[in-house]
């Protein structure tokens, strides 16, 4: 019986971080959602409001476009949610942010391995990817048209 081909060192390192982070993120998402719907913490936007139709509108609040919804409730955009993390709805963003930040962490973990292996092209690719994901996460980029 021949030995199975093994994944590279950086691939195994990436998988390890991804596995741990994914379980932490998903568990947090479920726990914080239970806190949210149980009403244990007050919500920034009251839960029952979401399905309500505001005066003069044709659709419920969650049927509004994102920017209209944000205006209606003065929702913080970008990383503004961090200041509201004590509210039940924004507490859920902790798990979401962990899932969203996981790939960045994985790249940061494999970068030293790639540098040690003198894999120059993949060092550049991984560094650029970190920059792209940080740019997306930064909140600097704004969608137009509103």
């Amino acid at each position: 019986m021949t030995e199975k081909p093994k994944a590279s060192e950086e691939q195994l390192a990436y998988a390890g971080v991804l596995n741990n982070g994914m379980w932490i993120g998903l568990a947090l998402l479920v726990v914080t959602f239970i806190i949210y719907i149980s009403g244990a913490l007050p919500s920034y936007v009251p839960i029952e409001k979401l399905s309500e139709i505001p005066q003069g509108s044709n659709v419920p609040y969650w049927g509004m476009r994102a920017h209209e919804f944000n205006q209606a409730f003065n929702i913080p955009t970008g990383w503004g949610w961090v200041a509201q993390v004590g509210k039940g709805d924004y507490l859920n963003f902790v798990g979401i942010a962990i899932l969203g930040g996981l790939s960045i962490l994985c790249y940061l973990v494999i970068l030293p391995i790639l540098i040690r292996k003198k894999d120059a092209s993949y060092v550049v690719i991984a560094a650029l990817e970190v920059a792209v994901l940080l740019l997306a996460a930064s909140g600097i980029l704004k969608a137009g048209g509103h």
Partner: protein
Amino acid sequence: MIHSREVLKILLVVLSIMAIFVSISAFASETQEAARAAASASTTPWWVWPLALFVVTFVLGILAVLGGVGGGVLFVPIIGGFFPFNIDFVRGAGLLVALAGALAAGPGLLRRNLASLRLALPVALIASSAAIVGAMIGLALKPNVVNTLLGATILFIVAIMVTAKKSDFPNVAKPDNLSQSLHIMGIYREESLGKDVEWQVHRTPQGLALFIIIGIMAGMFGLGAGWANVPVLNLLMGAPLKISVATSKFLLSITDTSAAWVYLNQGAVLPMIVVPSIVGIMLGSIVGVKILVKSKPKAIKWMVIGLLLFAGLRALLKGIEIWK
């Protein structure tokens, strides 16, 4: 070959599911009409919708596994078409649903050497950059334009699913210069043959160029992009089918991350839609894997195609305001 009795069964199941979605859609319209008549109070308790969302996404999770498609591609057109949520929030949730599924599958695929980091990293850089652009375009477009384009895209995906062929072990006579300089190649154990299979890729520049379009579409519609990743990696670049499917799944964890951040930062993520959907799809996927052992994948594939066709037409007709 599928027998006529099986075709009849599939049609009945698809028609039943369609009837359920049409009922949900009609219920949403009726409750909104009633709420409008009563000034601002909604007649439906808030918890009905996340509960319905959980049940529907659970079923979608089962169907996605059995039909061999990603959850996101079923989620966005069906939830966007038949639930009272705005397409902005549905796309934000769709990206997070696809992201969660990819993150969950990623570690196992990487460890078993089926998803290749060397293949994924250059592709991910292109696709994730393009997905940011796609997300920004998608959030700037009017909902009816998004629905029309989404409908057309879903119908295109149906056409790909019906016509595209797959190759287990494509013949790559000579790898191209770019893939050689990046050392994009590998070896994996093919259990069905009981031997190790060496692979390499060709047409890398053309493949990378196509991932610009794939990334933009993933970000714009929140669909995930396995439906496009696999044919490009397998048929164009010549990666074996298993490597293509696994690398595509892992790739989504990076592509969808960049687009998901744009939706999150623009306030287009509602936990009330996201969390029941993620939990529903993931639990459904677990059940789907168990059913897969006993099921007839070909019959189910046609069922999923029927559903996608219906959801695509719904999005298209909603976009051009024929079926509101």
